[in-house]
């Protein structure tokens, strides 16, 4: 089984097409799992700059295992994983429900965390980082909510703040775990539009998961389906030349 991902968005002029660009993430005949127990087998996947790829499957099917392996939290059991970008160039967006509401943290402080990798321990937040922070908040359309407590925001707003934090990293690839879960339809549309815009206009590779196949098919045509330990193209993509 080969699940190399095809280009579907036209690349900007002067840039190499996605097909030519070196994959940022590449999995070859990979077996993935926890503590030696396989969850997914024979995974073949390449993610190139500017691609928008969704992975859909029921809870517990292995989506998170795939993400955690790509992010370096889990080793590949067999096969190969190649990353052509540093871990610090990956913008990871967890589910906001996975974060602990015990923290009296503001939305601005959450976004600021994305820039911590560039700061020395004793350093204050320089003007360039403040500007980057404002830009990230602006991109997700939540500049006005920066001073609000993060856990007082709605599910959709929290998700967009976490996307702003991932953008603050300066990512080449965004990996989002169920970004549309628990969001109202308006937030779902705002987040979907943002993901499409990031992949098309900023050449950021976007790889996100959902348990709702129909929902992800409304966002992108490149949809992987994961079930029963196998990853395959969702219906309509199986005849793709890649």
């Amino acid at each position, binding site marked *: 089984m080969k699940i190399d991902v095809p280009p579907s968005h036209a690349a900007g002029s002067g840039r190499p097409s996605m097909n030519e660009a070196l994959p940022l993430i590449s999995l070859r005949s990979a077996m993935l799992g926890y503590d030696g127990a396989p969850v997914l087998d024979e995974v073949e996947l390449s993610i190139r700059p500017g691609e928008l790829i969704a992975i859909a499957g029921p809870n517990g099917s292995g989506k998170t295992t795939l993400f955690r392996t790509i992010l*370096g939290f889990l080793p590949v059991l067999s096969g190969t994983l190649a990353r052509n970008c540093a*871990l610090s160039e990956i913008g990871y967006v*967890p589910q906001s429900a996975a974060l*602990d509401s015990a*923290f*009296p*943290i503001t939305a601005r402080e959450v976004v600021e965390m994305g820039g911590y990798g560039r*700061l020395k321990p004793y350093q204050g937040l320089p003007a360039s980082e403040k500007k980057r922070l404002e830009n990230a908040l602006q991109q997700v359309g939540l500049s006005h909510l920066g001073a609000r407590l993060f856990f007082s925001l709605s599910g959709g707003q929290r998700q967009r703040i976490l996307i702003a934090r991932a953008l603050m990293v300066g990512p080449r690839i965004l990996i989002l775990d169920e970004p549309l879960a628990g969001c109202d339809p308006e937030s779902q549309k705002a987040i979907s539009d943002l993901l499409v815009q990031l992949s098309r206009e900023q050449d950021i590779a976007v790889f996100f998961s959902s348990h709702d196949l129909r929902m992800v098919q409304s966002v992108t045509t490149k949809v992987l389906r994961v079930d029963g330990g196998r990853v395959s193209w969702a219906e309509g993509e199986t005849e793709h030349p890649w």
Partner: protein
Amino acid sequence: MVSIFDVINPSFLLFPALAGSAILAFVCPLVGAHLLLRRRVFLGLTLPQVAACGVAFTFWLSHAMGFSHGTGGERFLATMGSLVFTLVGMGLLAHLDRHATGSSEGRLAAAYAFASALTILFVVFNPAGELEILNLLKGEVISLSIEELKLLGIVFAVIYLGLVLFRREFLLNSFDGDLSFLLTSGRVQWSFWLYVLCGFSIAIGVIMAGPLLVFGFMVLPPLISRALARGMSSFFVLSSLLGLVTALGGFYFSVRLDLPLGPTDVALGCILIFLTYVIQWSLRKLQA
């Protein structure tokens, strides 16, 4: 009658004790804030008891080795006992959390009960050290000497500096360990270093002031602060300031009413928590 100005005067007889509890009250809430946020607050209860057990053990050991009670060597051994028991206990609990099944809270509760029981047994074995241990358990910092105050000041200055310098790294690691791993490419074990600072603050704090006071200062100010803070910076700053207020107020009432310091500080902290939540509840009712 002793006034608040007499108490904070450096020439006051009990000033070292006041300064000592103020240092503890200023720094311990910063450590406790992280434990609270990581939902590991019972670690702040169990580890001071383990440290007290280490002190009781070394008092018993020094008695068995023939040291006469009250010597400097005995005090040094007690500090080492507190430190070794705390760090070993912490390492053991971390190892079990990673590799054993069952609930973490259950292990902490069992460790607390075991350490408490051993502390009493070591005191029974060594009646000569009974008074010292009882003072420790009551949280008596009254007998703090200038040398001990200096040691406390140096150790807690280092801990404070570590927590302030690496505040971003510790915060990120507590809030979202996955992002912390990605941004550092997994090079720095921030959790480990946070727990090392936590272990040192508990071990040295317990030998100077006892487990009750250390646990009280670690947990009560952050609990109040969390209800009031509007952001992480204000949460940490407010935690330290509230600790300081509790220490000064508790010391004043302790001297004025001739009460043991540890329980007075802790009772005052609990009253402040109660007042905070009652005021917040009343304000919400008024706004509704």
